[in-house]
Structures are given as C-alpha cells and as structure tokens.
C-alpha cells in the first residue's frame, strides 16, 4: 500500500518530519518498506511546447525538435521518440537539470546540437513508460516547472507492508487514523455530501445471495462526461501506483484507495434491464468474461453480479466484466458499493487464482458501515466533474448482526504485556483509534470494536491494540522465571556425536532436498513406495524421498561435474514411505547414510566400524545380502539397522557416477537405540599378555566374520583382543581358497599365562576353526 504524506494530511494535520512519520508507522506495524521523496526527481525540468519537428539529417531514428520553454529563444533538442507533434506540451530537462539518472549537458548527437532532453515518464520516475515522451494534459504556460504543472508538491510516499489482519490500513484514511493517534494529532474523515440527491432514478437491485453478499447498494449518477481526470487526482493515483484511465474509473479507484471500500461503476445504459441482480453461480458451472478478457468458470459457491436479466457482468467483490464497463460514451453510471462475505471472497479468489485490489480488501474485511461515506465520496468527486446524482441509494442488506462490546480487564492487559498501565491510560490508547472504551468499575473497560476492524473481536485483540499504541519498545524487558536445567535429549546428543565422528573420519555432511523426480527411485533401483506431492511446483520435485541414496548420488555427480571427484558425504534426514493406507500420516524415519565416492564397500565398512566403536555398540553382525539399489555381491545387512556395501554399478551408470560408491544407510533411531557396551570399568590385567598369530586357509564362501566368531568362542575369557590383519589370495592356496591371518592376544587378570596354557588355547582355537570351517592352518 503506497500512501503519500499529502494525502494523509487530508485527514490529520501531520507536520512531523517524514522520517518520524516513518518511524511511527513502523512502530504501529505498518512497516515502511520504502520511503520515496517526490518532486526531487525532476528538479529543473520544465514544461515546453513543441513548435516544430524535422528529421535529423544524419539519423533515421532521431528527430530534431524545437520547443518553446518559456524563454526568449527557441530551444533545439535531439529526440529519439516520435509520439508527439507541434502544439503538444512535453517535459524538457534543460542543460543543467538533474534527472534521477543523469545530469543534462549540451552535446552534439550525430552532428546536431541538443540543448537538453525531452523526457519519458520512466526517465522522470513517474511511470513505467519508456516508449515515448510524456505528453502532458491540460494547458500550461511553457516554462512552468514540471512539478507545478503536475500538481506535484514536494511529497513523500510511504510504501507500506500491511499485514492481513489490517483491512483498515489498506486505505489512506485508515493509515491516517492509526498514525495520527500515534503522533498525537487529531484525526477526522470529512463529511462528504451527496450533492443534489434529488432525482428519482433509483437503481434497480435484486440480491438473491445475501449470505455471500450481506449488503449491496447502488446509486445512479447521470450527466456523466467521461474524460481524463483532473491532474491532482491522476497524480494521486499514479503516486499510489495506479494508472489513471478516465474520470469515472479513476474516481472509483480513488475512493477505494482513500476509504478502503472497493466499488464498481457500470454503464447503466449497457446493463440489460437497467439494473443488477446478485446471485450464486449455477450449480453446473457457468462462464464469465472478466474485464481482463479472460473467460472464467464459476460455480455455486461464487457470488455473481448480473444484469437485471441474469447475465453475469462480473464476479462479485473480485473483478467486473467487460460487457458493461465504462466507455467514452457512458452518460449514466450505476455505482455498486457492496459488502461481500470475507470467506466467500477468499474461496473464490483462491479457486480462480485471481487476486485483485478489490478481493484483497474484501477477503480481509471492509467496513460494512462505511458504504454511505464511500458512496458520498464517489458522488461528490464525480459531481465536481459535472455529473449529478439521479436518485436515492438503493440499499439491500441482510439483518445487521449486533456486536457486543468486549470486556477488557486492566489486570489482564498488564499480565499479558508486563506493564503497569492504568485503566485510564488504556482508554487513552483505544479511543483515538475508534475503539470506544467505557469504564466498568475501576479496573475494566467495555470496548466497542469499530466496524472497520473485523479482525478484532476479543480481549486479546484489544490488548494488541493497547500494545501497539503504547509502543512495543516501551515494555520493560526481563527474563522469564525459568526454573529448570536446559539439556539436549540423549538422542540429540548421540546424533551430534554421530556427526562429529563421521566428520572426523573424513566424511562431509550434506543436506539434500527432500524431493525427488518421479523416476529417481527407479533409477536408483528402489521400490516405488513413495508418497507423492499433490501440488508440486515442478515434476522434478513431486515425490518424497524414501532413501537418502538418490540425493547423495546427485550431490556426488554435481561435485564430479565441478572437478571434485571422490567426495565422501553423509546425511542425516527424514525419509517417507507409504505405510498403512489408513494411517493418518505416511511412515516417516530419520536415516543416516554415508556415500563414499571413489571408495568401495571396504571403505564403507571401515567408516561403519569407527562409528560403531564411537557409539560403543555391542558387536552387530553384517551378513551378505542382495539389497535394492546396492551391489549384489558386495553388500550386507547390518543386523536390524540397515544396509552396507557399495552402490550397484547399474545405478551408478543411471546417475552418471563414474566412480565406485561405498555406502551404508541405517535407521538412526534404531542405531541410537541399539545395545551399547556397558559404561562400567573392565579390569585391566597387571600381567603380561601373549600374542599369537594364526593364519587359516578357508573357502571364499566362509565369511571371515564366522571364523572370527569361532575364534572368540574357542578363545574364551583368555582371548582379550582379536584382529584380522591379513587376507591373502594366491594360486598356491588352491582355487576358491584364501588365507585369513589373525592376531590373538591372550591375557589373564590374575596370573602370567604359562607356555602350556598358551599352547593349549592355541590348539583349541586351531581345532575349532579347522573343524567348523573346513580350514587349514597355514604354516
């Protein structure tokens, strides 16, 4: 909402420095996104009359223009636009003038002297029009400063960001009311008179959908002469960001901007039946062609404005139709000023994807009691253009709902805000903004909520008004009486530990998007149990991830394409899988995945081992398995937690990854809930230990993990450490056989082991492995 200081002053004598006004607006929550100072942009620019134009001798796209700029001599300028002719009034920036983007000097253009520049609206920052020179309406003496000719006094425009709960602040008057109260100056809306409302042409109106349109008024204005608006009015609209069209449309828009009440003028003589019918759209649907020449489909939830014969001429509260819009020939105007149901407008606007100045106001809620004033303002402005009011206001309204005053307890105000305001002070904040407060006893007020604040209907709403006008910054700050120890949960602490350990192990943390393209899962060899987004922005982001694999593969590809191969990544994130169809929500898990580009399954296993060790997990079995998306012969299942190994070469090819990718993915909640080794102390022996090395030749089919388990069982209590330290394959071992070499450390808590004891333990281990795994001890 763009509001100029001069317009605000129509309602309140604000003589403050504009910067202070901006601060007051900010403090009210009418946030000033930008503050523009007008009139400074075209210092030195004057009005000039075009006397003569002739071709530039050396350039087709330029012409020479001689103008009368009020001085004794004609001024020659070179100009690149051709949208004007002799007699037109145009803005001239003479030599020495400063435009927003440049300073004008005398210069030669393709051999001809240019003593200044004719300006477009865009160059002057008063419109977006770059195409041609701004041709000025009306009759002004050449030489008059442009600011004066446009009626632009030095002015300041505040571009306000108005929150959805403040329909009143979508009007100049509403902003003025709020800021006047804050600045402590009086505020008043003038009483506009409906001039000469004596005729007898009352508007014909029928309303069949009073639930959607609780109040509908119409009035006929005759003797209308459609023409450009007077300069001051056009300037105000332009300043507010609206394009002037003609006096009728402009006045309509002006009233909306000033008083916040959207309204719609029809050409009465083009309305079939000479009146309006308000009804719902047909249940089977019907089509309305709106002002923007778009054919829109509406239904029975939508409120239509129709001519007296029932043909739609607009969508109520949102956009008018093309059929009855104001034309140059319009002589009689029927003005609609209505109040539509907020929710109905919001629904229709959302469904049609159509948001207009009108719908924005109606869905936030306009003032149903402000209609008379808006109508009077419209009529008085058009009367100044020579029109006359032809009849009385036709007013069709549903029964008015009585609003009860809101009880506001002084103690409650102070309890919520942490202030020590008196009842009188609270009243003092409320009265100036139209929240009429009547004391009830000494410690409460009955507050009548003004009709322009539909957002406000409870005590807490009124407390917010008190807070705004008291000033948020004037509330004393203190710390809440927190009486507890803050802490992360065990899960959160462990999750941080997982991250730190992985980072320490050289793995980088990634955060990938939750969304996948529809074919990402198939390319990754994963099952299609994903949940789809109903309204995705793009198809590439229409499926929720079921695994962190596709996202991490894409991150690997991205980095490889930037000459960074071999990236080691991990991610902790939520994935989603379609679980039971009748569940309230799909299944959601927090997963941990590690992807080691350029690393193989063994590298993944080493990272896993570090992590498992850091978490003090009890040993978990890793069993070879064929799992979706993973390398069929290099993958295993981590008991109860997830999968580990390498990504399937086919999947890598589908994603364009040119390296091996070591991989594991586990359910983080299960990982952190897995059994841990006890935290209690394990006695350390004072006696020396004995190390023995044993190498066994076993079939490939025998997992080393199984041999290890056999050794542990056989070694018993004496075996305190066991480590596989070499794996060897060679022709001398025989086909399909390999050697696994283990180092065993034997130790007892209470003695030094004798040679016999060590020999016996060694024998036990050898026998166990040889008999269990068809193994041979290597000499």
């Amino acid at each position, binding site marked *: 909402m763009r509001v100029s200081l001069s317009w605000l002053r129509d309602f309140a004598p604000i003589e403050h420095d504009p910067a202070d006004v901006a601060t007051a607006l900010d403090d009210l929550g009418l946030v000033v996104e930008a503050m523009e100072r007008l009139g400074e942009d075209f210092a030195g620019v004057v009005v000039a009359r075009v006397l003569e134009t002739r071709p530039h001798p050396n350039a087709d796209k330029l012409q020479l223009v001689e103008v009368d700029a009020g001085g004794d001599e004609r001024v020659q300028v070179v100009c690149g636009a051709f949208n004007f002719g002799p007699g037109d009034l145009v803005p001239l920036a003479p030599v020495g003038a400063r435009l927003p983007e440049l300073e004008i000097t005398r210069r030669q253009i393709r051999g001809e002297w240019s003593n200044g520049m004719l300006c477009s609206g865009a160059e002057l920052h008063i419109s977006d029009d770059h195409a041609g020179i701004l041709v000025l309406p009306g009759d002004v003496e050449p030489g008059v400063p442009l600011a004066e000719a446009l009626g632009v006094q030095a002015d300041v425009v505040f571009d306000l960001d108005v929150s959805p709960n403040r329909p009143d602040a979508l009007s100049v008057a509403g902003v003025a009311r709020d800021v006047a109260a804050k600045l402590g100056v009086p505020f008043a809306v003038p009483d506009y008179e409906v001039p000469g409302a004596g005729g007898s042409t009352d508007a014909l109106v029928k309303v069949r959908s009073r639930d959607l349109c609780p109040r509908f008024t119409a009035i006929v204005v005759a003797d209308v002469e459609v023409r450009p608006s007077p300069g001051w009015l056009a300037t105000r609209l332009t300043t507010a960001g609206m394009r002037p069209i003609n006096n009728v449309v402009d006045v309509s828009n002006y009233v909306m901007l000033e008083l916040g009440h959207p309204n719609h003028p029809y050409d009465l003589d083009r309305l079939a039946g000479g009146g309006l019918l308000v009804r719902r759209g047909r249940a089977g649907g019907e089509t309305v062609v709106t002002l923007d020449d778009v054919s829109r489909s509406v239904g029975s939830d939508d409120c239509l404005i129709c001519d007296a014969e029932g043909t739609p001429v607009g969508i109520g509260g949102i956009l008018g139709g093309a059929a009855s819009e104001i034309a140059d020939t319009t002589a009689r105007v029927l003005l609609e000023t209505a109040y539509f149901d907020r929710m109905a407008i919001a629904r229709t606007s959302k469904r049609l994807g159509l948001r207009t100045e009108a719908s924005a106001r109606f869905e936030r809620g306009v003032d149903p009691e402000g209609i008379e004033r808006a109508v009077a303002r419209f009529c008085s402005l058009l009367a100044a253009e020579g029109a006359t009011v032809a009849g009385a206001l036709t007013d069709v309204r549903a029964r008015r709902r009585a609003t009860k005053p809101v009880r506001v307890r002084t103690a409650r105000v102070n309890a919520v805000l942490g202030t020590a305001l008196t009842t009188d002070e609270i009243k003092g904040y409320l009265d100036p903004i139209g929240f009429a407060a009547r004391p009830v006893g000494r410690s409460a007020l009955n507050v009548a909520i003004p009709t322009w604040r539909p957002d406000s209907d409870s005590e807490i709403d009124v407390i917010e008004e008190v807070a705004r006008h008291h000033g948020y910054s004037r509330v004393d700050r203190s710390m809440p009486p927190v009486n507890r120890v803050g802490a992360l949960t065990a899960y959160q602490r462990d999750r941080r530990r997982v991250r730190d350990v992985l980072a320490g192990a050289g793995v980088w943390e990634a955060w990938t998007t939750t969304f996948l393209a529809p074919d990402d899962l198939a390319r990754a060899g994963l099952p299609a149990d994903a949940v789809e987004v109903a309204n995705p922005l793009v198809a590439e982001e229409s499926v929720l991830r079921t695994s962190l694999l596709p996202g991490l593969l894409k991150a690997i590809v991205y980095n490889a394409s930037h000459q960074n191969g071999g990236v080691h990544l991990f991610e902790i994130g939520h994935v989603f899988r379609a679980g039971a169809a009748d569940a309230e*929500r799909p299944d959601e898990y927090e997963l941990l995945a590690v992807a080691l580009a350029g690393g193989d399954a063994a590298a993944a296993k080493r990272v896993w081992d570090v992590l498992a060790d850091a978490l003090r997990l009890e040993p978990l079995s890793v069993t070879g398995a064929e799992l979706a998306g993973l390398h069929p012969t290099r993958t295993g299942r981590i008991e109860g937690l997830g999968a580990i190994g390498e990504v399937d070469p086919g999947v890598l090819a589908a994603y364009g990854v040119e390296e091996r990718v070591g991989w594991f993915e586990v359910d983080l909640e299960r990982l952190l809930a897995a059994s841990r080794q006890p935290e209690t102390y394990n006695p350390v022996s004072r006696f020396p230990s004995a190390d023995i090395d044993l190498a066994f030749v076993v079939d490939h089919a025998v997992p080393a993990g199984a041999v290890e388990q056999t050794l542990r069982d056989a070694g018993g209590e004496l075996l305190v450490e066991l480590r596989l330290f070499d794996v060897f394959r060679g022709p001398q071992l025989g086909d399909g056989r390999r050697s696994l070499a283990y180092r065993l450390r034997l130790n007892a808590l209470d003695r030094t082991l004798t040679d016999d004891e060590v020999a016996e333990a060694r024998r036990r281990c050898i026998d166990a492995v040889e008999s269990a795994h068809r193994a041979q001890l290597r000499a």
Partner: protein
Amino acid sequence: MEASELQQIYDDAVFRALEARTLGELRVVESETLGKRSPLSALHQRLGSLAPDERRDAGRTLNETRARIEGIFARRLGELEVEERRRQLNDERLDLTEVLRGPERGHLHLVTQTRDALEDVFVGMGFGVAEGPEVETDWYNFEALNIPPAHPARSLWDTLYLKWGEPESTLLRTHTSPVQIRVMQSQGPPIYSVMPGRCYRQETSDARHLAVFHQIEGLVVDHGITFGHLAGTIEAFTNAYFGAKIHSRLRPSYYPFTEPSADFEVGCIFCDGAGCRVCSHTGWIELGGCGMVHPNVFGAVGIDAEEWTGFAFGFGIDRLAMIRHDFDDLRYLLTNDVRFLRQF
C-alpha cells in the same frame, strides 16, 4: 715398574682416544686400554710381586694414571656423543612443508553448525529441544494454530499437500509450529522448548527463498509469562548469539497463532547499526516473528489461557547462516558443493 712405561700407556691412551672418530671406536680403544687384557691391567697384576712399600707407591701411581685415562675417555665420550647426536639429527632432517596431505577432515554442514549453535544458546537459557514429523496433518499445521480452513491468513503459507487421505488433509509442514502443539499436548506447562527442523513451502527457490528450508521456533508457557519476558528472551538470545553489543527490537506484526504479534530485528552485525548493504541501510536486520501465544491455540490443546500465558518465536536457520556468513544465495545450502561446504 717403569714410570716411562706408565707414561707410554697414558700417552697412547690420550692419542688413541682423540683418534677415535665414533663411539664404537672409542669403546674398542677403551677396552684395549683399560680392559682386563690391557697393559694397564697387566701392570696391576704385577703389583702383587712387589715389596709392600713399593707396592703402595706403585699402586697409587697406577690408580692415578687409570683415573686420568678414565677422565680422558669420559671427556672424549661426551664429545663423540654430541657429535653422534648432531650427525643423527642431521640425517633425520625433514622439511615440514614437503609433507603430503593426508585425508581431509570432514565438515559439518553449515545448517547443522548454525542449528547446533542456536540450540546451545537456548539450552544455556534452560530450554529443551523438541522435534516432530515433517509430514503433518492440517490440524497440527493450521487449525490448532488458530488458522481455520479457508482462513485468508492461509495465504501467508504456500502449502505443499500430499496425495494422502482426503485432499489437503496431509501436508509438508510449513513451519515447525506443529511441534509446539505436540509439545503442549504431550507434556503440558511449564514449557521451555525450542523446535528446530526442516519446513516446506510451495514456492520456487531463489537466492533468498528455499522451498525446503530450516527453522527454529521457541515456546515458553508458564505462570505469569508476559510480553516483557518475550522481549527479554529475544534480547538475551541476541546478545548470546551475536555478541553483547548487538541488540534487538520488536515491531507489531500479524500471526494468527500469537497476539500481540511482533517481528523482531537485530542490529546489523556488519555495520553496528550505521547502515550498510546487508541491512539495506536501515541498521537493522529482520530475523523472525514472535508473540504471545493466542488463547485459541491454548484452547486447541486444552491449556487454560487464564491460568497460563506464554510466548513463541521463530526464525529461519538458513537465512541466519546467510546473514552471519554473508553469502548471497541460499541455494548453496542444498547444493552440497564441497567448495562451499569446505569454508565452514
């Protein structure tokens, strides 16, 4: 026993000790000069054949000579040890700048680092950290937060719905506020919690907006909680996170789930409020929204709004990281370009 014989032994020892170039050589010389088979030892053995008087004198002379020779060797040993050490150290010389780099350490993602730092500030203030699902029902994401169906305020959140259950019944949470509802349901007041997590909006990602983003919210519900406590908490957080000289301010705003509502801003960390590019020359950076918990929200979870009051606040983790580290495009956060990640 001739004095000249002893002198000869002594001179020989001195000469050979100086001649020895290594500790090994010196040890050989030492053994040959002082060992059991050395001439000196031979002289010792001959002492027994001398008359007692002679033996005493000769013995003393012999011991003195032995002591002098031992002194020579000890000195020479010291010299050679120093030399040996010098030689050894010189051989081990290593240019520390020629060392090949080992595997690079991993990095925690900037979102994680920022989130952890924020959590730590609030934990230090006595808060717990609560989490919840990213897929939510309409009730948790909107209705319980005083945003009824078709309420115009819903236009504040462009929502991604899922093909799950009734149309528009299941969605990707647009804020972490549903976790506030879940916390109030599950534990009841008093509550001092922050809720970090991933959120979603149906909007095209650009330099300043992400469709997938991260947020942290806070919720306090207790007896006697006021707007002043809210402002004090925001200020304490600002001082703790940005530094003691950075302050905060609140401005009225609108959120359906709080009233009074506010946006909060912090003094620009780059210009200390003087005005610069980062703060659009205002001296302030808008961080997030906050306010007193709306009585209707308490109503939705069955907390008596007359007995308990509370406040809530929230802001974007990604945006905070962008401000703090002065980068210009939020999309870096989901690209996982190692050239970006490496910097943090």
